[in-house]
């Protein structure tokens, strides 16, 4: 009995949804959309600029790598000299 009445209520409630009317879209909608599309085009960065920026970053990175490599080489040679001095000292003890 309870189920029957619940079912009736459910069907009734869903029938109410069928009474919802279709309404017209706001008249200014098209102008607003064109404005949004225009704004997006303004914000759009062309692929030419993206490629130029990527190339500049790549050049900077490779330049930095070269610079680091050169610095490491010179510190290595300092260490070599130091080691040689040390080994010479060891030799002198013998």
């Amino acid at each position, binding site marked *: 009995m309870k189920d029957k009445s619940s*079912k009736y209520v459910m069907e009734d409630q869903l029938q*109410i*949804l069928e009474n919802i*009317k279709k*309404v017209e*879209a*706001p008249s200014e*909608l*098209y102008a607003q*959309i064109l404005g949004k599309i225009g704004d997006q085009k303004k914000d759009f960065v062309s692929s030419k600029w993206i490629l130029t920026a990527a190339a500049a970053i790549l050049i900077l990175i490779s330049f930095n790598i070269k610079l680091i490599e050169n610095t490491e080489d010179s510190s290595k040679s300092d260490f070599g000299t130091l080691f040689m001095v040390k080994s010479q000292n060891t030799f002198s003890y013998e």
Partner: protein
Amino acid sequence: MSFELIFYQYQKMVYNLALQYTQNTEDAEEIAQDVFVKISQKLDGFKNESSLKTWIYRITINTSLDFLKSKNSKKRFFFGLFRDSDHENRQNEPIDFNHPGVVLEQKEEVMKIFSFINMLPNDQKTAVILLKIEGNSQQETAEIMNLSQKAVESLFQRAKKNLLQKLNQQKEYER
């Protein structure tokens, strides 16, 4: 088909569908704007794998669901600061209910049923909206949702069961 022609042919459909999801004119307007911006961007890539109407339906459904997800997460953040036992119910209540398609005499009842529909999982919510409010056939709904007719029927039955459960819960709460 030009963008302008598409707009004038489908603006009412898009706006009304967004309105069924949000039950608010401002939100529906925002969604409709986003939908047509997306259409203008994707129109060149549209392959006639489905009809234009189905394609626009799908864009509108996805945009509406994304909009609600982001709106609810903002709401959750706000209510999280003042969390209490009624938190979950309040989250789905159409506080800003403003649906011009609902007649005044039925506003209370429709508001109540929408508050339950808003609690349904997205696919069940979409099935109820497309079948019951938009008046699409089961075949049309299946095509829009990219499902079989059987799956749509099962979704709708589950939605009805869930709605009934929520209605009964509310009745007991009111007693």
